[in-house]
């Protein structure tokens, strides 16, 4: 099955919530998502978000659909080159079920 989000909801300065086409719901804390930015720069040298930004100051200011496979997030720290593919986002889902590896085994 190809996972794709049916709704992406920015929950203010806290988190981003995705409801997937299979009904699964993922909730990502903003900092968690920002620290897992998949862009080439962050990937090579994980500088992560500016440490001076408190949790309430780091949030997505704009979210856009990229083609049919990803979303782009513009962060409040002006970082905007991360393209989060649906596959990556699904893997990043912090819920207990997804992180236990059972989900991957079931869909493999």
């Amino acid at each position: 099955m190809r996972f794709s989000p049916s709704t992406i909801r920015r929950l203010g300065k806290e988190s981003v919530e995705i409801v997937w086409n299979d009904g699964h719901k993922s909730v990502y804390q903003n900092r968690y998502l920002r620290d897992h930015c998949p862009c080439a720069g962050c990937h090579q040298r994980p500088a992560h978000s500016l440490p001076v930004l408190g949790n309430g100051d780091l949030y997505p200011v704009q979210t856009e659909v990229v083609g049919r496979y990803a979303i782009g997030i513009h962060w409040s720290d002006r970082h905007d080159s991360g393209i989060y593919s649906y596959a990556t986002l699904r893997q990043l889902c912090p819920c207990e079920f997804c992180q236990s590896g059972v989900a991957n085994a079931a869909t493999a």
Partner: protein
Amino acid sequence: MTGIDDIRERLTEVRPPGFSHDVVAAGMVGSIDNQNGKVTIDLEAPPMPSNSLAATVADIRRAVGAMEGVKEVNVRFLPSAHAGGGQRPDGQRPDSGTQDPGSELGPIPGVRDIVAVASTKGGVGKSTVAANLALAMQRLHQRVGLLDADVYGPSLPMMLGISGRPRASEGKRICPLQKYGLQLMSLGFFLDDNSPVTWRGPLVMGLVRQFLKDVEWGELDVLVVDLPPGTGDAQLTLVQQVPLAGGVVVTTPQDVATLDVQRGIAMFQQVNTSVLGIIENMSYYDCPKCGRREDLFGSGGGEQIATRFGVPLLGRIPLIGEVRASGDTGKPIVVERPEHPVSQLFVHIAGAVLEAVAAERLATAPPTIIGE
């Protein structure tokens, strides 16, 4: 004689994967028509994965096809209000309000579906296929545009016998050129014949973006994009800038055994875009003197790949002089000799592509983005 109500009754046995209701109870079945055993069913499907949709259509065909007196079952897709990938009937972009109005990403206004024609290896006749496919779609009453995104070797001007510089519209947008009823854009329109394009990636990306977004395409049913060979900047930009309805991969029989085609398919899969099918070009040669069929580049490769990746083989186009010659003189075979078997084959392939695009449009809707 099987009545319409009997068919509707039979359809209650078909339940799409993952649905709690059958297709009738779910309100997916529109009108049903039975002309002497030729049954046509209109289907309005909610967004669902394409394989589920394909399974549903197959189940419908099987269930109704088994009924007494039914010779043929056609399933037509009705445009659905849920359908994604393009404009909604109300003209609203699905994510309007949350997406920055200045954002360049997203569908092209006025263009319903975008189909990419790709090959991972050069010289397989991709541009010939793209041009004939676009013209064949037009014969199926579609409004078609053809974008030659082959930056390094634009061949569309020669293939369609067209030259001239596109003008700028009042809004400083680029007006496409027209030939044979197609809306056309190519880098070749801007170059002298002999100047090579030695461009780095960012320039290529900028050009593809401009050709998609700054060209006054008008109202189109399908925009066919002829990609350069390979899996590089032009391909990546295309799939990131616009939601593609799908890709068509062109190959020759001997290549399909190699890794090349697999890479092409994998590229589309990586970006969640369906491969609508494979077209095998230069498939065989029928000797005009003795009538014997020669498989110059081997045979069966397209079928192998199609089976292995679960992608349909849309057609096998023979190696014949007319296809090549008609391209060289700027009159593709579909226009020059519409009655030719190869032209009819292209129309058949175009029909299959359009059907797959329609199914894809129903199966995938872009996500709704809600900001707080």
